[in-house]
């Protein structure tokens, strides 16, 4: 239990508070365990008992009569899913495997060999090996077809299964059998797994000293990666005149990371506050006023779209409310709630909405989303393209971390890339033509 408690809150708050919550959580666990062992110290209300007996009755009927013999565990998982699903669309139940996957995602690293893979026409394809990883060093290439994993044929294997088979404990070996275009026979690679960092921050620049930073999600190391990205930019662009922060299609992540990322840009005052039924869920987060770094003052444009949610909306909301920069793009997703991850005793977990959050001016984002200061639509779907193509393209972008960041960061963004992205082009134009003070005016004149 203790091990998973560092994750007891997906949107983690201040460390001190989170420790308090962990203790709180632990005592609850204890209460439930006591109950489970039949200890009279913990008693359910009569109403609860009645309700539970209705459930037990239903369970018995299903177990005895349903045409298929069902595993009780699966039935209970289905029940918890249904119970949590009846709350709101962001609360959910995670079976142990799904919970493990989430922990990997939020930790910002995993143990594997460092390839991004995709499924194309039912074939498992290497999208790209990540620089510096075992896969990269061994010479795996983009486009390689994975025929076997540890001798097992990949035919009919879905993407998640394949990912699971390729990942494994650090130091263990995985064997991939590869087919490559100009090889006349299969090639076998034996790779020793390592800890692979998942990058959530990507950086590029324009030749006239404007930086571009894309955050793909908010995980444990996002703030550190952001600081590093900013250092890199300052070394490359002298002077660094402005910054585009791309939060498009960023589904969010950890609350404390949203606060830390906002804090990079906001000089002082309130960033966000949360309110819940439980006192422990009511919190206010302020910017660190002692920092005088360039990030706090540099001209800033934030890109958002309907795929920017939760933590992304906290950052965008703070930037907008505190008039720190301008928001360009389309209306954001509109998820104004905070979820806490609550591990259950068998390794599964609940993702439970425990609070709502509000921007510094007291706005709730829920269902309304954040309206950009300057609406710029993404290009329409090209004519004659099938949904299948679009889906594939979207998947490809996802595997590459989206946006225009699939090239090495040392390569400046070309006019060609800009042409395909009118939102980015408008952001660049805003930074080029306006001194920072005039941003709000620029916003009113499209």
């Amino acid at each position, binding site marked *: 239990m203790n091990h998973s408690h560092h994750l007891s809150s997906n949107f983690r708050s201040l460390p001190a508070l989170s420790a308090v919550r962990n203790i709180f959580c632990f005592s609850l666990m204890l209460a439930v365990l006591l109950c489970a062992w039949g200890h009279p110290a913990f008693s359910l209300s009569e109403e609860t008992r009645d309700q539970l007996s209705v459930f037990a009755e239903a*369970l*018995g009927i299903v177990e005895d*009569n*349903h*045409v298929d013999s069902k595993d009780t565990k699966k039935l209970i998982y289905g029940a918890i899913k249904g119970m949590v699903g009846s*709350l709101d669309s962001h609360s959910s139940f995670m079976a142990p495997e799904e919970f493990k996957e989430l922990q990997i995602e939020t930790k910002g690293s995993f143990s594997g060999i460092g390839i991004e893979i995709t499924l194309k026409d039912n074939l498992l394809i290497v999208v790209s090996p990540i620089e510096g990883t075992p896969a990269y060093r061994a010479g795996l290439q983009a486009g390689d077809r994975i025929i076997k994993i540890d001798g097992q044929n990949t035919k009919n294997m879905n993407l998640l299964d394949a990912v699971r088979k390729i990942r494994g404990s650090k130091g263990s070996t995985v064997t991939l059998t590869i087919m490559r275009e100009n090889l006349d026979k299969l090639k076998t690679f034996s790779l020793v797994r390592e800890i692979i960092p998942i990058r959530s921050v990507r950086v590029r620049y324009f030749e006239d000293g404007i930086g571009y930073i894309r955050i793909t999600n908010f995980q444990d190391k996002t703030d550190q990666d952001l600081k590093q990205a900013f250092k890199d930019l300052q070394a490359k662009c002298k002077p660094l005149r402005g910054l585009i922060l791309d939060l498009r299609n960023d589904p969010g992540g950890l609350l404390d990371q949203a606060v830390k990322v906002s804090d990079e840009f906001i000089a002082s005052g309130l960033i966000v506050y949360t309110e819940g039924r439980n006192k422990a869920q009511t919190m206010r987060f302020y910017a660190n006023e002692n920092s005088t770094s360039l990030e706090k003052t540099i001209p800033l444009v934030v890109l958002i779209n309907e795929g920017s949610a939760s933590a992304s909306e906290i950052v965008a909301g703070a930037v907008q409310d505190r008039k720190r920069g301008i928001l360009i793009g389309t209306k954001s997703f509109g998820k104004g709630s905070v979820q806490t991850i609550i591990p259950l005793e068998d390794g599964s977990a609940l993702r439970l909405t425990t609070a709502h959050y509000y921007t510094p001016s007291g706005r709730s984002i829920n269902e309304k989303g954040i309206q950009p200061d300057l609406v710029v639509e993404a290009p329409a779907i090209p004519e004659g*393209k099938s949904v299948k193509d679009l889906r594939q393209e979207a998947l490809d972008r996802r595997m590459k971390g989206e946006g225009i960041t699939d090239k090495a960061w040392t390569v400046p963004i070309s006019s060609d890339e800009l042409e395909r992205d009118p939102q980015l082009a408008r952001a660049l134009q805003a930074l080029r033509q306006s001194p920072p003070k005039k941003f709000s005016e620029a916003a009113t004149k499209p």
Partner: protein
Amino acid sequence: MEKNKLNRMNTPTKPTFRRLVGSLVLVVALCWTGAHSAAAVSSQAYAQLRLLVEALYEIDSKYVTEKKERDLIYGAIRGMVASLDPNSSFLSPAEYQESQSKGNQSEADAGMELSVKDNLLTVIAPMEGGPAWRAGLKADDHILKINNQSTRNVTALEAAKKFQGPPGTKVKVQLIRAGLAKPLDLDLTLEKNTVDSLAYYPLEDGYYYIRLRNPRERSAQELQQVLRTIQSNPSARKGIILDLRNTAGGQLEEARRLASAFVGNELIYSVKGRQTENKQSFVGLKDYQVLKEKLPLIILVDQGTARAAEVIAGALQAQYGALLMGYKTFGDCAVSKVFPLKDGSALVVSVGYCYTPRDTLIQGKGLEPDISGPKKDSDDQPVAESPLKMEKPKKIPDLNEVMQDPLVRQALAKLKNWGRSSVTQAPGNRLLKKKQAASSHSAEDEIS
């Protein structure tokens, strides 16, 4: 719409129910009294219930707003039942009462059958000529919203209820469809079911086309009538095409009578479940038999062929030597029972699955055609921004349009070659594809 009727085979089974209450309440009692009694429930079930109690406690104490425990438990039962199969469902006390008082009659409906596929509420098929069909719904559409309410965690039975009410009731649906980039909003109006149960066209000399749209009580008599007409033509009886595409409605009893018109008292289907009381064989009715001879028979099937129609297809394939032509069927044929719970709510639980006379399971698998239809490539079609604008008003295809249908043409070609080539594609298939391209303005295939 008629899932409830179709699947409910028997009345509630009281004895089982009472025995269960007795043994299961004990498990819950264990949790608060600390008594370690020899409960009838496995220790595994006990351990698992503990998990549910834990989850309930966490929600009770931490969820952002306060929730009624009853709603949480109903949510849990719904979730458990939804994890079983698409036909099982939960009825709240009010819903159960309503279903009992109204019996099986609904005033008006949308004329479509629903299921849950990949966790999405899915249209099995809209009945040709019915309100849903005229509004533009199609087989395999996924319904996202009904009257602006999300269909997340909604069972097929619950959703079906939203499409029942007084005639004239308007219902808004939002759906996603393969080949469309954006969700589509449609309005439909509930109506009394007045769709003709079947249509019959003599094709060329000696060949006949029968379309079953709406299997219901009168259908078997109507089919007998048609078959008698065919039989009374002494010179030319060369073959029949029975079109069961997009036919998902009707009760199993109706399937039995309809199939009897061809095969008399042969085995039509059987039902098997885990409890022996749920095992049953259904044999046809001698009195209903019309055809005494075996005519070449091709049954057209597709993704929208389900339940009663699947039973008919399976029975005639096995007992009459019919060939199935087209595409794999939907794969939905289960029998369910209603179990009342002690607080007035009830469970609808699938207790048996249907098997064809060849002992093929229909549920979840569907029947494979003996002869495949032309390849469908809807997934590769270009994206249409507003597809409905291109559509002409829907009307039921007449003989002329039936004759343009590539699958009907393929079936006719096969009938003319009956017995000559075995189970391969009919000759002239390439020609048919050309024809299909040329006739892309037929009423059925407008959206593309």
